[in-house]
């Protein structure tokens, strides 16, 4: 019983990371109808920015997070402006290829400074375990869950109550409609990418203490974030969050009770299983195509 709850908390912590990754994917997909295959690498960039801030600039954890988020956002906006805007209207294969190329490029660029060793990021707390109600729980996990939750709430408020957030929602519904009412969709796209990148980078910094840091770490998070988004039907924010928790917890339980070897691939099984049984995800609705 004790073991189960520890695993559960760990699963929720990882799950909140996957949820954040899912959010970033869904955000871009809803606005530009394309999956950003480089999203995992944005997370990796965030993690390494945080790592560099800590190791080279000796910034404390909190400020590393801020630095990663800001630089991540900038990175996202630049990517959209330089690479994406030119091809935004082309065939979906073209778009997807650009993000694939970007993902590979980023991995290569990261490998030059960071490829030699596997790095680690020290946890934010000195204590390794905290005992709550007789159950050992890692404070880092709790911190991760808390931060992810705050991010989700901040996002909700952003979409609901800020002008930019509303414009983004409008553009997601209909690009032409948004243009007709005077919304600068170019800015919205740039902001969407920036926002998605910020979330991704934040996830990276949160992931850093829980995971090893290496240039290829992105793919793993991309797949699991995708599993989470798929569970949520690729449409909704709450869906992505619930999906993230499910993936995180299932993975941990698999690892704890079956075998750690299977832990890596449990997310893959989830993806394949869900998509075969419920092709639109757990919460999704059938999309009607127009010719």
């Amino acid at each position, binding site marked *: 019983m004790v073991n189960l709850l520890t695993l559960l908390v760990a699963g929720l912590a990882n799950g909140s990371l996957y949820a954040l990754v899912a959010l970033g994917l869904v955000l871009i*997909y809803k606005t530009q109808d394309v*999956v950003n*295959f480089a999203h995992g690498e944005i997370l990796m960039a965030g993690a390494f920015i945080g790592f560099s801030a800590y190791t080279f600039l000796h910034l404390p954890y909190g400020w590393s997070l801020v630095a990663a988020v800001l630089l991540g956002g900038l990175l996202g906006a630049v990517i959209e402006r330089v*690479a994406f805007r*030119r*091809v935004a209207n*082309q*065939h*979906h*294969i*073209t778009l*997807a*290829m*650009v993000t*694939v*190329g*970007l*993902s*590979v*490029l*980023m*991995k*290569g*660029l990261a*490998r*030059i400074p960071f*490829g030699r060793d596997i790095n680690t990021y020290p946890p934010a707390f000195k204590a390794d375990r905290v005992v709550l109600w007789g159950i050992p729980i890692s404070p880092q996990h709790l911190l991760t869950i808390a931060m992810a939750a705050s991010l989700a709430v901040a996002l909700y408020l952003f979409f609901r109550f800020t002008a930019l957030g509303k414009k983004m929602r409008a553009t997601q519904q209909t690009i032409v409609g948004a243009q007709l009412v005077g919304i600068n969709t170019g800015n919205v796209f740039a902001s969407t990418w920036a926002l998605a990148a910020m979330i991704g980078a934040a996830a990276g910094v949160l992931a850093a203490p829980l995971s090893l840091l290496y240039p*290829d770490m992105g*793919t793993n998070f991309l*797949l699991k974030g*995708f*599993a989470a988004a*798929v569970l949520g039907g*690729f449409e909704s924010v709450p869906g992505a969050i619930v999906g993230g928790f499910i993936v995180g917890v299932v993975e941990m339980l698999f690892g704890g009770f079956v075998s750690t*070897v299977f832990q*890596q*691939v449990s*997310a*893959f099984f989830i*993806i*394949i299983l869900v*998509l*075969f049984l419920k*092709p*639109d995800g757990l919460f999704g609705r059938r*999309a009607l*195509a127009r*010719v």
Partner: protein
Amino acid sequence: MERLPWLRRLFPFVLILALLAASQVMDNYLQYIVNLVLIYVIIGIGLNFLLGFAGQFAFAHAALMGIGAYTAALLTTRVGLSFWLALPLSGVVAAVIGAGAALPAMRMRRVYLALVTLAFAQLIIWVLINWNAVTLGTDGVDLRAPYLFGWRMRGDRNTFYIVLPVTVFLYWLARRVLESHVGRAFIAIRENEIVARSNGISVAWTKTLVFALSAFYAGIGGGLYALALGFIVPDSFGLGQLTLHFSIVVLGGMLSLYGAVIGAVVLTTLPEFLRDVQALQEIIYGLVLMVVILVMPQGIVGPLKRFGILPREVLARNWRRLERRG
């Protein structure tokens, strides 16, 4: 080439003869490179069917190549089957598994196909690494070269004598398939499935066919790859391999058989020079993928065709007959 029809028709034969002649005097390393180029032509053609012509964005090509490679290697060393049988089997095994990937393609939204196949590819690598009893895991497997009339076909030149006819045959086959109603059905589903269906095309059947065909080529390519290298490990068939495949198709030109050839020639020679510098490889491939798509979305063959250096490719047999009508 457009203006010299005799040149166009002679060129393939000239090329084959040149390669055969050159192989008599090449050193082993160069021969090995030539073998790899031919193998990646097959791989590129296979991916082009799926990605370029049929527009199915799937990430399983490298994993399927791995399946083909392991099938060939394991059948020759652990089961004792002759390579002459193991090679077609690698194609068939990969094709069956590849057709299995068509199932999600038919049922789910486009966005999911890419990531499902990516997950599947990771799963395959994981199986290759962890199923030690069968695949020998990270220790790798070697391949036993075949006998031809009692002569052991070992070494790079002998490998070339096997790889070349297979490549030529598979190229010819691809040309026949593409210039038929099957090839036209591929492009139809690429553009708009609803329109394809309204013209009598069964999207389900066409997708299954293109996935199987593409996987078959990947499998054969994998089997020949195992032959050329003599020894394979799971890690060779991961994302790095897949990136090379994508780059070949994008750089050469999607929607073009010539593109697969050109892409394979250009990019296969590259990794050999950069073999130890993974970061540099990745940066180059990443840039190739992005820049080519942004600047030359039709790949190298685009401008080559526009300037008449490369002939047009029209998906209809003997279409030039119609040209002469005037």
